[in-house]
C-alpha cells in the first residue's frame, strides 16, 4: 500500500441525504391503504398505484432494457404480475420496492432471453425523433452544436450501458438514476449490501474503460 505523507484532496460527500421521514412514511401509509383495498379486490385502488409508479417503473425498465417498446411491455407485465401477486404482499414492506423487485426480476429474465437472440444494432435501436423530443433542463438554450455533442455523448453512454451485464445495469440504474440507497437496492435485487457495493464498483470500473474517450 502506498501511503503519502501529504494528504490527498478528494471530494468526499456527506452521508446520503434521504427524503424527509415524514414524506416517506406518509407515502408508504397511503400505499398501504391502497394495497389493502387491492387485496380486497378493488381494481380502482390499483389504478391509483399504477398511476403513481407508472413512470418510475417504466424508467427502471428502460434502464435495464434500453428499448422503449420492450420497456413499455415490461412495465405493463410488471403491473399485471403485481396485481396477480398482491395477495402475497406483506404489509411491512414498501409497495414501491416490491414493484421494483418484480420489474427487476422480469427485466433481467427478459435481457437474458433477448441476449440469446440476434440483436438490433445500436444505431437502429435509437430513434432520433424520440430522442429529439426529450425534455431538456430549461435553464439554458443550447446551440445546435452543443445539442449534437450532447446527443452523441448520450449515445456513447447508452452504448456503454448496453454492454454491462443486466445485474450491473440494474444497480447503476437504481443508484445513479433512481437515487436509491444501498439498503433499498439490496431489497430490490434480493442480495446483501456488500454485493450491491461490489456490483456498483465493478459496473463503474467497466464503464470507466468503455467511456474512457469521453471522460
Amino acid at each position: 500500500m502506498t501511503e503519502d505523507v501529504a494528504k490527498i484532496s478528494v471530494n468526499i460527500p456527506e452521508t446520503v441525504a434521504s427524503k424527509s421521514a415524514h414524506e416517506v412514511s406518509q407515502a408508504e401509509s397511503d400505499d398501504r391503504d391502497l394495497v389493502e383495498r387491492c387485496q380486497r379486490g378493488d381494481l380502482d385502488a390499483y389504478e391509483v398505484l399504477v398511476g403513481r409508479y407508472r413512470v418510475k417503473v417504466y424508467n427502471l425498465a428502460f434502464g435495464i432494457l434500453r428499448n422503449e417498446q420492450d420497456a413499455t411491455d415490461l412495465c405493463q407485465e410488471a403491473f399485471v404480475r403485481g396485481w396477480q401477486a398482491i395477495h402475497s404482499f406483506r404489509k411491512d414492506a414498501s409497495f414501491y420496492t416490491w414493484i421494483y423487485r418484480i420489474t427487476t426480476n422480469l427485466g433481467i429474465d427478459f435481457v437474458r432471453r433477448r441476449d440469446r437472440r440476434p440483436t438490433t444494432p445500436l444505431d437502429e435501436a435509437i430513434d432520433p425523433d424520440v430522442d429529439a423530443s426529450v425534455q431538456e433542463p430549461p435553464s439554458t438554450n443550447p446551440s445546435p452544436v452543443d445539442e449534437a455533442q450532447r446527443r452523441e455523448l448520450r449515445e456513447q453512454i447508452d452504448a456503454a450501458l448496453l454492454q454491462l451485464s443486466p445485474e450491473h445495469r440494474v444497480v447503476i440504474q437504481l443508484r445513479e438514476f433512481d437515487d436509491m440507497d444501498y439498503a433499498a437496492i439490496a431489497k430490490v435485487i434480493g442480495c446483501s449490501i456488500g454485493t450491491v457495493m461490489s456490483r456498483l464498483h465493478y459496473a463503474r470500473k467497466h464503464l470507466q474503460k468503455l467511456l474512457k474517450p469521453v471522460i
Partner: protein
Amino acid sequence: MTHHNTEAITGLLDGELKGLRRWMAQRHVSRCTTCADEYRRQEQVRQLLRANPPVSPMTDSPEFFWSKVKTEIQRRGDERVAAPTPHLVFADWVRQHQFAVATAAAAFIAVVGALWFIPAFRGTPMVTVTPRTATPVARVEHLKTLIPHTAATAFDDKDADVTVIWVTGLPWTPDMNKMETKFANLDT
C-alpha cells in the same frame, strides 16, 4: 482500513458509509494515492452518468397504459402468482438497526442483572423438606450372635422410640488391631 478496499471506496463515494467505517475509509483515501485515483475515476463516471440520465419519456398516456394493464388483468382472471417480499438479509438488517439492537441487548442485560440482585426474584429453594412420618419399627428384644468373641449391646430409648444395637468384634479376625466396631440401627 489497511488495504485497498475498493467496495469501501464505492461506499464512501456514494455517502453510504457511517461512523468508524466512514472515518477509516476517508482517512485511507486521503493518504493512499492508488485509492485516491480510483476514487476520482469512479467519481468521474458517476458525474457523467448523473449528468446524462437515460431519457426516453413514456409514450403511452396514463389512461391508455392503465387500459392495457386492466384488460390484461381481466383477461388473466383469477390466476395468482407469488412475488417475494423485498427484505434485507439478516446481517444487513442488524447493521441497519445496530443502535436499536445494542440498546435492546443492554436493556435486557440490565433487567436480568437487576432481577438477580432482588432476592424475591431469585426463586424459592428447589429442594423442599417434608417431615418424615413415623414408620412402624421392630423392636429387638433378644439378639443372639453366632460368631464367637462378639459382643452386642442393645440400647433402647423409649422417648425416642428407637433401638440401637452396638456390636463389637465383628467380623472376627485374629489381628485385634483391625477389629472394627459396627453400628447398626434397626430403626432406619
